[in-house]
């Protein structure tokens, strides 16, 4: 101490406050500011207010979680019934990551993530684990030597597959399979039914001629009439 300590007033204190907090003043001015804040209750209070405000601003500027630790603690103390258990937290983890968690559950989930020390790292670990699975998927194993040849050997009996050509019969079969495809179209089903019916009908007629077909139809009509009449009259055969 040199016995001539620098003294400042309240106006100078206010004017230099920011520089004082940033430690940007020279040593003598810095000491004078500290001394004044201890002597003057109003400036002391002002100093504390500014410090608190700056701390609050820092918290807002770096939101590591949506829910700050302080807020989570307040909610835990004031509405403890809304706290989430670890099992419940884990059960909802995938829904949280997928963004399907309802709003009410979402806030309880985040609060648990902030407060529970054993759960707080879990979401990050799960995300890294999924990423590791994805890396694993991308790095496929190479095919073992000769596996394709062994597959060809046990399925078609040769490793030189190009030598195996389709036979004429199988080609014909595939050709027929291809041309039958249009018949499967639903709109043509009635036509196919009529053709089938005609074929069956012609098959029962004598020789398949138009005359024979007419003769047969007259006979069938006569038989049908006879059977109907017998049923109406209650006559037993």
């Amino acid at each position, binding site marked *: 101490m040199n016995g001539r300590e620098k003294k400042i007033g309240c106006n100078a204190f206010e004017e230099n406050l920011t520089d004082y907090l940033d430690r940007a003043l020279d040593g003598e001015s810095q000491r004078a500011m500290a001394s004044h804040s201890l002597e003057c209750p109003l400036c002391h209070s002002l100093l504390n207010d500014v410090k608190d405000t700056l701390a609050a601003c820092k918290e807002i500027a770096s939101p590591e979680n949506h829910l700050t630790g302080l807020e989570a603690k307040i909610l835990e103390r004031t509405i403890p019934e809304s706290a989430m258990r670890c099992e419940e937290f*884990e*059960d909802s*983890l*995938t*829904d949280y990551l997928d963004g399907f968690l309802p709003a009410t559950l979402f806030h309880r989930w985040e609060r648990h993530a902030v407060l529970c020390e054993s759960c707080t*790292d*879990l979401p*990050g*670990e*799960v995300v*890294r*684990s*999924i990423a*590791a*699975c*994805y*890396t*694993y*998927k991308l*790095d*496929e*194993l*190479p*095919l*073992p030597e000769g*596996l*394709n040849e*062994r*597959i*060809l050997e*046990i*399925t*078609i009996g*040769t490793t*030189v*597959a*190009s*030598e*195996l*050509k*389709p*036979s004429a019969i*199988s*080609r014909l*079969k*595939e050709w027929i*399979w*291809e041309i039958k495809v249009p018949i499967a179209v639903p709109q043509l089903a009635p036509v196919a039914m009529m053709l089938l019916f005609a074929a069956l009908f012609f098959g029962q007629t004598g020789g398949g001629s138009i005359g024979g077909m007419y003769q047969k139809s007259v006979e069938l009509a006569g038989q049908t009439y006879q059977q109907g009449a017998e049923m109406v009259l209650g006559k037993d055969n």
Partner: protein
Amino acid sequence: MEAVKADTNNNGAELVRRCRAGDGAAWEEIVQSYSRRIFNLAYRFTSSVEAAEDLTQEVFVRIHKTLDQYDPKQGNLSNWLMRLARNLIIDDYRHRQRNPQNSMADTVDKHSFHLRAVGTSAQKQVERRELCNQVQQGIDKLPPDLRTCVILRDIEELTYREIVDLLAIPEGTVKSRINRGRIELAKILRRMRVVEI
């Protein structure tokens, strides 16, 4: 990528038609297009190269026998083949879980990965190889039900609906198994120091 290429221009149906007619080259094209993908799927469930090889051969024998059942109207060839392959591989996995003495894959073999070298340094290659080995070891430690769901969702990237159809279990069960499987895998990988915050 090979599998995707094989299905472009809707040539899957044509390939199958040629196979049915006895065209060896067409069958060879199918084998070459899908064998690696099916082999890798089998490896994820068996953790053994030898077991995966055997299983891949069995899958192709079955595919060859059932080619007649392929109907292009019900989806492209790739989907049909992979659905069939998944069914068979999962059936085999379930069977081995019920009969552990028949399991060929209870011990994780020391197969080393041969990763693509394009654009990566040697150090990165080693790290990726190590990571893949550890992920497979982690998956092996999961209970069978969880393991199946994690592989299908996070490696095969099937939708919930596709997994429901494949495993024939309710959607709620599928979701819960995927969630539980992911958490368990993350905890295993944390113990193995693979994922750390």
